[in-house]
C-alpha cells in the first residue's frame, strides 16, 4: 500500500500557484499535514481525493497513476472534506445508505456497517431524524461516518475536528489512531494538538511547498535547546516580540513569562522542553526567513 506524490503543482486559472513541486511518499500510518491557513493543505487533499487534477506532476496509488485511473483509488478511498453538505430531507441512515450505494457497497454489508458507524460516532439515538435538524458537530460526525463506510485503505480527513466539542474531539483522535494500523490516514489540520495526539509522521506545508517531512520525534529534535522561558516586564513585551519568536505568554505576578524560540536564549532565560507547537513555529519561521532572503 503506497501513495506517491511526485512534483505535484496546482494553479487555479491564471492565478497564483496553490501548490508547488510537492513530493511525498506515504505508507500505512497517520500523516499529520500541518500548515497555516492558505498553505495549500486543502488543495493537496482535493488532489489526493481525486476531486481536482494536479496542474503538474503526478500522484500514484500502488503504482497506478490517478490521472489515468482515478477509480483505482476511489474504490478504497474515504474522504472527509473540510466543507461538505448533506441532504436535509434524509435521515442519517438514509443518507449513509445512499452513499453506500454510490460507493458500490452491497445492501447487507452496508446495513451492518451503517449501524456500527452510527454507534461509533455516537448518533444511534438520532439515526432516524432528518439531517436538516442536525447541529454542525452532528453533521461533522455524519461526515466521519461516511468516510469510513467502505472500510477505506486511504482515509483523508481535512480539518476533521472543526465543530466538534472537546469530548468528541478526543474520541475522534483516538479513533484515528486505532484506524491507522493497516491503512494510510492523512490528517490535514492547523491544530497542532490534533496531530500531536495521533500522527506517526508529520509533513509541514507552507506557501504551497513542503517545508519538512519527519517523525514527531525528529521534528522535536530540530528545536531541542532552542526553547526558552524568559521573564520580562510587561512593558518590554512588544519590543521583545520584534526581536524573538515568542510562541506563548502568560502574565504572572513577577512579570510576563514568555516562551521564546531562538537559537540562543535571551539573557537570564531558562531552557524549556520543546513541544510540537514550538517545532512547528520554528520550522515555519525558518522557512519564511529562507523564502524572503
Amino acid at each position, binding site marked *: 500500500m503506497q501513495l506517491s506524490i511526485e512534483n505535484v503543482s496546482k494553479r487555479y486559472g491564471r492565478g497564483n500557484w496553490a501548490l508547488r513541486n510537492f513530493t511525498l511518499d506515504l505508507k500505512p500510518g497517520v500523516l499529520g499535514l500541518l500548515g497555516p491557513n492558505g498553505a495549500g493543505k486543502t488543495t493537496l487533499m*482535493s488532489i489526493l*481525493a*481525486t*476531486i*481536482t*487534477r494536479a496542474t503538474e506532476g503526478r500522484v500514484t496509488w500502488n503504482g497506478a497513476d*490517478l*490521472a489515468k485511473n*482515478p*477509480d483505482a483509488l*476511489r*474504490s478504497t*478511498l474515504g*474522504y472527509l*472534506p473540510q*466543507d*461538505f*453538505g*448533506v*441532504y*436535509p*430531507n*434524509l435521515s442519517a441512515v*438514509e443518507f449513509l445508505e*445512499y*452513499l453506500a*450505494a*454510490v*460507493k*458500490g*457497497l*452491497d*445492501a447487507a*454489508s*452496508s446495513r*451492518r*456497517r451503517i449501524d*456500527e*458507524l452510527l*454507534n*461509533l460516532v*455516537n*448518533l*444511534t*439515538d*438520532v439515526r432516524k*431524524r*432528518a439531517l*436538516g*435538524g*442536525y*447541529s454542525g458537530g*452532528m453533521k461533522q460526525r455524519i461526515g466521519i461516518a461516511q468516510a*469510513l463506510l467502505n*472500510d477505506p485503505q486511504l482515509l483523508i480527513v481535512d480539518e476533521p475536528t472543526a465543530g466538534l466539542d472537546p469530548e468528541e474531539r478526543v*474520541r475522534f483522535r*483516538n*479513533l484515528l489512531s*486505532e*484506524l491507522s494500523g493497516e491503512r494510510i490516514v492523512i490528517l490535514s489540520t492547523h491544530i497542532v494538538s490534533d496531530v500531536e495526539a495521533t500522527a506517526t509522521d508529520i509533513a509541514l506545508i507552507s506557501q504551497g511547498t513542503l517545508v519538512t517531512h519527519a517523525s514527531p520525534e525528529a521534528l522535536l529534535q530540530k528545536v531541542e535547546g532552542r526553547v526558552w522561558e524568559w521573564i520580562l516586564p510587561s512593558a518590554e513585551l512588544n519590543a521583545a516580540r520584534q526581536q524573538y519568536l515568542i510562541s506563548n505568554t502568560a502574565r504572572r505576578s513577577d512579570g510576563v513569562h514568555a516562551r521564546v524560540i531562538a537559537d540562543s536564549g535571551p539573557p537570564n532565560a531558562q531552557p524549556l522542553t520543546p513541544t510540537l507547537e514550538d517545532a512547528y513555529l520554528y520550522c515555519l519561521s525558518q522557512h519564511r526567513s529562507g523564502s524572503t532572503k
Partner: protein
Amino acid sequence: MKPGMNSARVLYHMVRADFLERVRRYSFLVTLAFAIYIGYAAYAGTIIVRLGDYRGVYNSAWLGSVMGLVASMFLTLVGFYIVKNSIQRDQDTRVGSVLAATPMTKAFYTLAKTASNFAVLASMIAVMAGAALLMQLLRAEDPRIHLWPLLSPLLCVALPAMAFTAALAVFFETVPVLRSGMGNVIYFFVWTALLIGPGTQTLDRKKNEPVPAMAYVADFSGIVSTLGQMQLAVHGIDPDYSNGASLTIGDTQGPPLKRFVWSGLEWTPALILGRIVWCASAILLPLIASLFFHRFDPAREWGRQKSQAPAIAASEMESHSERITAAPVSAASLSPLPQASHGIPFFRLVAAELRLMLKGKRWWWYLVAAGLSVACFFTPLDAARGGVLIAAWIWPILVWSAMGSREARHSTESLIFSSAHTLSRQFPAAWCAGVLVAILTGGGVGLRLLSASDGHGLAAWLAAALFIPSMALALGVWTGSSKAFEAIYTVWWYLGPAHHTPGLDFMGTTPASSTPATYAIAAMLLLAVAWLGRRTRLGYA
C-alpha cells in the same frame, strides 16, 4: 450624522456590494449576452414590431420604442429568473446571518434587495439602449439621433416594468410557497397575466378610438400604451389600416412592410400616471414582502419538514445523544467489509437515486401524482394524451429540476465525486431515475398507446419520457441550479404541449403536433451535453 443620511449610505453600500458581487460572476456575462442577443435579434429583423402591413422608419423614436417593448416583453420574464436569488445568496454565503445581527429593519433589507435587483435589470436596459443607438447608425434609414425619443421608452416605460419585476423577485423570495421552485413555475403565469392582462383588449378596439386612460394605468409592460399610440399614428396615414399590432419573433415571411414615421410616445397624463403607479408598486411590494421575510431565522426557514427537529433543538438533541450513549466505542467495533461487498446491481443505485429524488415530498404531492397517473389509465385515450398527460408531466417538475444540481445545491459534490465510477454508474442511475418518474406519472398513456398499436404516439410518448429528464439533467449540471429548468420547462410546456403547438409539443399530445424523432434525438444530445458537463466538473474523469 443624520439618520436619513446614514440610511442612504447603508442602502448605497448594500446595493453596491450586492451589485458588484453579481456582476463579477460569469452568470452576469450570460445575462448581458442575452441582452445583446435581443438587441441583435431586433436589428436582424428576427424580432419585429408590425402594425398590420406597416413598420416604423428606423429613426430614434421607433428604435427606442421597439427596444422598450422588447425589454418589457422579455426581460420581465428572463430578468426575474436572473435576479430571484439575492436573498438566497445571502443565506448561502451566510452573509445574511451577519446582516440579521445589525439594526437594519426587515423593510430596509427588502427595499435594498429590490434596488439591487433593479440595478442588475437596469444594466441590461443600458445595454439595450446602446443597441438601439447602434441599430439606428447601422440601418441608416434616418441618421439623425434624437436622444429623448430614443431613450424615453427605455427610461420611462421599460425601467418601471423592471422596477416592478425586481420587487416581484424579492416578494417571491420572501413568501414561503413562492420561494421554492414552485414560485418559478407560478411566476410564468403571473407574468403572462400581467402581460396579457386587463389592457390588452384595448389593442382590438375600434379604429381611431383613443387608448382609454385605465388601459394606460394597468399597462405593466407599456405594450398597450406604445402599440395603442402606434395604431393611432398608422390610422393617421392609412384609413384602411385594420388595427393589427404585434411583436413577432422569428416570423420573417411575407411581403416587405410599408413604412410610416413614428415620432415617439405622447406623454399623456394617464401614461405618466401609469408608469408612476408601477414605480410606486415597486416600492410598496418589498414593504409587503418584509412582513414575510424570515430575517435569516433558521427556525422560520421554509422547507423544514415537520419530521425535522428545528435547528434550535439540535444542540439539545446532541446532548441527549451524548447522555444516552456515554460508553466509549472504538474502531474495533467495526466489522471488516468482505471483498465481495463491493459491487451492487445497477438497479439498486437507480432505486437509491429515485428515493433521493422523491424524499421530502408531502403526502398530498404523492396523492396528486397517483391521481394523475391513474387518470392516464382510465381517461379516454385522446383526452389522456392531450390533457391528463400534460398535467401529469408538469406535476413532477420540481423532482426533475433538482437533477444534476442537487450535489452543488447541497454541497455534497466532494462526497459523491470522490466515489468510484461516478460518471459511469451514479450519473446514468440519476438519469434513469428521472425517466422512471416520467414513466410512473404518465405511464398509463404509454401503455394504452402500446395496446392501441399506435406506434407513432408511443414513440412520441417515449421520446418525451427521455427528453424531459435529459433536459433537466443537462440544465442542472451546467447551471448548478434548478431554476433554469423550472423556468424553461414551464414556458416550453405552456407554449408547446399545453397549446399542442407543432414543433414545440415535445409530449406529442396530438398526432398532428408530435415530432418524436426530433425529441428523441434532442434527448440523446442533451444527455451527452449533461454527461460532458459532469465530466468537466469531475477533476478526474
